[in-house]
């Protein structure tokens, strides 16, 4: 088992791996929280783009023209203004 100090990834070799077996199982380390839904406010609020929330989760989006962020609670988008 190896821990890469740069990527924070964990690598595990199978017990049956031989000396020539350089393939290790890779476990990705902690990832930075990233808001993947980034769009204009109009497109975020457009009903044809409305997401479905998984159980006990809510969708979050970032407005590229407003710099606000948006959380969909299942019926409305709650808006959090950029204060900077």
């Amino acid at each position: 088992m190896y821990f890469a100090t740069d990527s924070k990834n964990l690598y595990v070799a199978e017990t049956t791996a031989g000396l020539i077996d350089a393939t290790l199982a890779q476990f990705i380390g902690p990832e930075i929280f990233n808001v993947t839904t980034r769009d204009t406010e109009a497109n975020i609020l457009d009903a044809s783009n409305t997401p479905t929330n998984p159980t006990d989760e809510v969708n979050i989006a970032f407005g590229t023209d407003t710099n606000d962020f948006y959380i969909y609670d299942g019926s409305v988008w709650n808006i959090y203004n950029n204060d900077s």
Partner: protein
Amino acid sequence: MPTTIPSITSSTRPGSPSAGDAYFETDTKNYIIYDGTNWRVYNSDGSSSPTFPNVYSAELTDGVDDRVMYDSTSGNQTSLGSFTGDMSFVLWYKQNASPSTYEVLISSYHPLIAGDGVQGKFDMDIQSGNTLRIFSRDSNSGGFSDTSGGTVVNNAWNFIAYVVDTTTSSHYTYIGSPSSSPTLANTIGTTQTLEDFSNGFKLGDGNQPNISGYVDDFAIFDGKALSSTEVATIWNNGSSFNFAGDASLNPVGWYRMGDDNLGTGTAVQNKVNTGSSYDAELENGAAFSTTVY
């Protein structure tokens, strides 16, 4: 993949959080983050219900070759479906002037011979005098050219629904307007199926005389013959119908013509099957317009 965060209520905050843990509180609408010692609370500054604007259409300007094209992706088959049985399509359109002969409103795409230089199997044309012509050719089972497809209104928005119903061996054309609900305008008794749509379709043509005007809110169904009630539902009192808010109609293609991308670019996104292989495109100078029904 959209980004989600866990949700809780203000009374169910975790007892042993880690620094950086973040939640949305469904009762307060607050976004909270634990800093290692305290919960930091970010109040919602307001809210907005999802909107459903219709502010763009596709303008086919030149009357020559402007068109909305959805074409084959691989193997001369689209990703949308086979269209070998029941199928339907709906759209809104407005032509600028009465055609001198005819103008193609929609045609299936024939990619097998000389690119798009050959018509597909199916055409719906606006004739001089503002009647529809429904045209289908099939060397195996016989085609038809029905010139009494119904009367449309010149220089005004028309709602069209075309239904292939293999159970009744009929093709139905419904015509409506923003202020009048669609009515059955024509019935063609035929066993003809329109599998040519599996090659794609064109709003406008680029080969035959082309509509000069606007098209909007096109939807196409595979394996479904819309009923008159469903046609009226989609007409929606002359307003855009939100298929995303309906669980029963299930089109395979739904194209809003710019309303979902602020009318920019030339890609016409499919709103029900996402991905580039499902999208259509404005071609030959066609552009999004703010002229809408």
